[in-house]
């Protein structure tokens, strides 16, 4: 059986030079930007606030709520269950639908205050192998204890949506080892509604409990 080879990743933030000042221009931007921009704006909070905010909103939701003061729209945008989308294009369609509906029912289209425009950004992702590989569940959980949070992030978030593998890397490896039950449990975890350190300890506990029985 192939050992699990841990990779890590880092993102470079690209400024696209495109901005939005109201819902209409936000929608136009969401239609036009590359997929890596959608990924950036829906995942950035996870890494930047990974110890702080257990329910990280995405940038679109944050801007609608905090800058445009549109709480209902902000709630609609932030309650998106990203796990239900198999691709970034599906996620794009979701945001377009929510914004389209909001625009249809809006009786006015306020501009944001000057200087508080939404700036579209994107990311370039650099993936590199670490020296760590696990052949057993025990070794896997030991490595997971100390490996950088970026490595965890890569195998959970990037693997599924950014790299289009459709599943997180841990579940795929557990299944390859014949641990279907553990793979299914891992798949059930919602990584978007907990801090990354919380996620790290949940996975370690889950794997160790499974391994002990």
């Amino acid at each position, binding site marked *: 059986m192939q050992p699990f080879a841990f990779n890590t990743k880092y993102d470079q933030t690209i400024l696209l030079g495109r901005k939005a000042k109201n819902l209409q221009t936000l929608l136009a931007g969401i239609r036009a930007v590359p997929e890596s921009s959608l990924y950036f704006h829906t995942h950035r909070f996870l890494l930047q606030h990974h110890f702080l905010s257990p329910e990280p909103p995405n940038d679109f939701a944050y801007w609608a709520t905090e800058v445009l003061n549109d709480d209902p729209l902000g709630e609609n945008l932030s309650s998106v269950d990203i796990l239900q989308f198999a691709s970034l294009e599906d996620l794009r369609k979701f945001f377009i639908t929510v914004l389209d509906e909001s625009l249809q029912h809006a009786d006015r289209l306020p501009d944001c205050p000057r200087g508080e425009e939404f700036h579209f950004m994107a990311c370039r992702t650099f993936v*590199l192998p670490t020296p760590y590989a696990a052949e057993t569940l025990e070794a896997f959980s030991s490595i997971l204890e100390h490996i950088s949070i*970026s490595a965890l992030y890569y195998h959970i978030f990037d693997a599924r949506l950014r790299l289009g593998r459709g599943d997180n890397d841990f579940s795929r490896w557990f299944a390859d080892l014949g641990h279907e039950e553990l793979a299914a449990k891992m798949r059930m975890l919602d990584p978007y509604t907990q801090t990354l350190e919380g996620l790290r300890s949940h996975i370690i506990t889950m794997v160790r409990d499974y391994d002990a029985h």
Partner: protein
Amino acid sequence: MTHINDYKEIVGRGTIEDLFLLADRLQGKAVQNINSTAVGGGVAEILTRMLPLLQDLGVDARWDVIKGNERFYSTTKKIHNALHGVQVDILSDEFEDFLETNRQNASGMTFGDIVFIHDPQPIALVEQRGTVGGRWVWRCHIDFSRPDDHVWRFLKSFVDRYDSAVFSAPAFARALAIPQILIAPSIDPLSDKNRTLPEETIDAVFTRFGIDRSRPVVTQISRFDYLKDPVGVIKAYRLAKRRVDCQLVLAGGGATDDPEGPAIMQQVNSEAERDQDIHVLFLPPSSDIEINALQRGSAVILQKSLREGFGLTVAEALWKGRPTIAGAVGGIPLQIKHKYSGILTHSIEGTAHWIKQLLQEPAFAARLGKNGHQHVRDNFLITRHIKDYLLLFLSLYHADDIVHL
């Protein structure tokens, strides 16, 4: 002398190991930083701290400084002001002189594989690119949100010849044909300004300045200029003090080239003379330990700026776990999430309100400080800055959206 491994205790072993992995991919590439000053100013400060750390990681990092005469620096000062949106007149022979100085500097220089140009002063060195080759990056450290059009057009003719441009805030992005990359500035947790201090050192600094540590201290560390609103700080303190006992410390550098500086100074001094609990401290540039101690010994830190580039003094205060109240301007909202990692305000009255709240609710204030510290640890330390620079250098050799190194 600090070493990269000294940061493991702060950011964790995994983060430092990842930096070594990234740096390893730059073997054989000489990275040459070029700016216009070896000491003084934020760029020199960060390069002084960062170069040895990059070298520790195995990167062949170098640093050259261009030289110019008084006229050159007078022109670059005008360019600097114009990028801040100030109306300036730069004569065509001043532009010509600027270019000539760049050419003279280039003639005595050996260029690296990656040429990393900081700020506008050496920007025209890129004229040599056709001859010397290499990859070229321009890093703009200054507030670039409303540049003067004439000056920007002059600079843009050079920026377009680089491989990438780097800015500190999203609002500084421009319409450019080359990739624009966001890299926020950082603080060094092991520098004298930010490292942990013994209580005795903090006590000694407070005693030396005649500040009573047994009563709450509210502090703003910043230059005495209009944009930092020291008079607004005094007004907010007075409003708060009607209900809660406290002292105010205003500490920072002396007068700047702000034309309104002397008037502000006079106003601050006359306010302070009427109240023994207001301490105005003019600190020389070598006062890092004093600033550190003042921040660590304060109950609340203010940064009531009216306009701000990035506002690294906020990161410094948050790093020390201090509850911080700051103006919601420039890069400050990137550092503080309101009521979570600090307080963002828009007025004197709002600032006074939150001073009272934080002084009277120490548990809430402590929670803000703890969250702020964590946010800085994750996003605004020099190790994150080094990681961004390593990615920047690597990105010059890869075109893909997802790069497998």
